[in-house]
């Protein structure tokens, strides 16, 4: 519910909305005054010191003022009933570190747009906020105070325009003041509404952008779904087709060996039998890699225990998971951990690895740590970048810390809810 809608409804005066509108405008005036001081002093001092280069960082800092101001404004908008203004399109810096953060900020339009808003707030908006509050609250209140003033001083100057000195007149002025106060409450609501709309229009993500972003995310999610379905289909085709035929073949060959008289034929049969067995073992590994059945049947915990079993490097497993998590989450998390364990075995030289994790506060968090030599480079064409994409489709993050000398730590975080908290966790 916004202040606008509240204005149209009944019982506006008795509700919290006039108070909220006042609080919105008063806090806006205070914030604007502070912003004005910061901007002016930053610009003046920074500009004066720019000659000796000391001022340049200060100027840069001043240019960034818009970012915290915008953040405060977005939160403050809730007072006016405008919930969840999507933050502007600040990009995530490509690398960690202050320098990268600064260049990203200074290069993007959102930073300058927010600075422009801060300047607007400091120069134009806050005096208007203050004026609105004074006119709509201060004026009626001073009129309402007339009888008190008359009783105390014998006369009261109303709005510095005319003098009242009799009790009846003072009472009439006071009544008028109260009526004006009621009208003022509506004025405040309207001003706060306009002000909030303006802030939202200037600070919110542009509609076109946000629509395109959702559409993009949706289509990526669809793609991942399609990819998963295809994986399952391939797994099933292999399982129900090629694998069954190979088993039948080894069975036939096994029986044939029993009945073959010793000699070259028996030797050939033994060889064929051995090869068929090997093909079967390879096929089994292949199918497992495509989509492990245990993940679908028993969930993430069992599948990770299985992955730990398979790892050539000993793995300590510490998991605190609820029953089951949504399928795409389990799949993405499982493959991320598998890839990490495979990298540990291939590149890290580690003697031990640990998988820890759990589900808390609506997030699945998994960490894979090893005691190897570190220095893993996610840019180096590792399978992790692809997995990061998959995790990001689920609004999750995959991060890697691997300083030279180790230890390497991979962290997967995916927001999700357990699908069935009562389901047994095998």
């Amino acid at each position, binding site marked *: 519910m916004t202040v606008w809608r509240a204005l149209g409804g009944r019982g506006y005066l008795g509700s919290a909305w006039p108070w909220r509108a006042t609080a919105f405008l008063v806090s806006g005036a205070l914030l604007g005054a502070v912003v004005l001081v910061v901007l002016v002093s930053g610009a003046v001092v920074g500009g004066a010191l720019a000659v000796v280069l000391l001022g340049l960082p200060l100027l840069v800092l001043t240019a960034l003022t818009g970012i915290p101001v915008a953040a405060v404004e977005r939160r403050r908008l809730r007072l006016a009933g405008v919930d969840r203004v999507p933050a502007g399109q600040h990009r995530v810096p490509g690398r960690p570190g202050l320098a990268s953060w600064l260049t990203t900020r200074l290069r993007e339009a959102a930073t300058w747009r927010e600075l422009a808003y801060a300047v607007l707030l400091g120069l134009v908006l806050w005096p208007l906020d203050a004026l609105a509050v004074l006119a709509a609250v201060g004026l009626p209140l001073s009129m309402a105070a007339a009888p008190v003033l008359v009783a105390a001083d014998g006369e009261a100057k109303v709005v510095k325009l005319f003098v009242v000195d009799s009790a009846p007149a003072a009472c009439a002025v006071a009544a008028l003041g109260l009526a004006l106060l009621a009208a003022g409450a509506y004025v405040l609501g309207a001003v706060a509404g306009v002000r909030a709309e303006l802030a939202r229009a200037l600070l919110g993500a542009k509609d076109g952008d946000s629509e395109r972003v959702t559409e993009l995310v949706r289509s990526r999610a669809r793609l991942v779904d399609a990819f998963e379905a295809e994986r399952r289909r391939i797994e099933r085709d292999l*399982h129900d087709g090629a694998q069954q035929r190979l088993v039948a073949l080894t069975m036939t060959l096994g029986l044939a060996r029993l009945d073959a008289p010793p000699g070259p034929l028996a030797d050939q049969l033994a060889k064929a039998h051995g090869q068929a067995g090997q093909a079967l073992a390879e096929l089994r590994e292949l199918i497992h890699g495509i989509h492990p059945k245990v993940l679908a049947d028993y969930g993430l915990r069992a599948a990770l225990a299985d992955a730990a*079993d398979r790892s050539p490097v000993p793995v300590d497993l510490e998991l605190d998971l609820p029953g089951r998590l949504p399928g795409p989450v389990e799949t993405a998390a499982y493959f991320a951990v598998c890839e990490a364990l495979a990298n540990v075995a291939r590149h890290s030289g580690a003697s031990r690895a640990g998988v820890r994790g759990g589900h808390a506060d609506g997030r699945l968090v998994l960490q894979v740590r090893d005691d190897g030599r570190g220095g893993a480079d996610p840019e180096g064409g590792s399978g992790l970048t692809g997995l990061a994409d998959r995790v990001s489709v689920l609004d999750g993050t995959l991060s890697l810390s691997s300083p030279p000398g180790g230890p390497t730590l991979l962290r997967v975080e995916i927001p999700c809810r357990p699908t069935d908290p009562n389901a047994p966790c095998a």
Partner: protein
Amino acid sequence: MPADRPERPLRVVLAEDSVLLREGLVGVLTRFGHEVVAAVGDAEALVAAVAAHAPDIVVTDVRMPPGFQDEGLHAAVRLRRERPGLPVLVLSQYVQRAYAGELLDSGDGTGVGYLLKDRVGQVEQFVDALDEVASGGTVVDPEVVRQLLRRRRDPLARLSPREREVLALVAEGRSNGAIARALVVSEAAVGKHIGSILTKLDLPPADGTHRRVLAVLAFLRA
């Protein structure tokens, strides 16, 4: 080379949804003198067939219609709950501790087997495992055993490498004699190793042929 006639012919109920494999399995079992009293294609029919025929042993696939999840395994677990002591040999396409664990936890862990389907091709090994399970033994696929051996954790950490080797062979359902032959040691040495394994796994002497099974279970759960 073949020991064609078993010590006792078994009456087998077989559940496998692939017709190709079902026929193949019937062929192998018949070849070794066992009788397949029913060969069915889904878990429902398996339960019905066991009720109708009261077989000596059940051989079932894990994944079966209609859901192609682990219906066969669950049917096996259910059957063992209803008929304690019914020997069940489960064939799986996967090396999976979770599946094996669930099966072995049903009943007291005797008379169960968990084999990879690949093993069916080694027809003699397969039929040996069948006999072992039918006579109350526990058989775990060597591939599962191999995976478990990679994880050196308590209580197995206390075992010497040789003892682990012996325990792995016990898990595969081999007798002391067979283990002795495989490791090229005397049967008495095998007995000694097993005694020490049981002590280290806190399985004190009881009237216990089942202690071997308990050791295998400890091994699986480690």
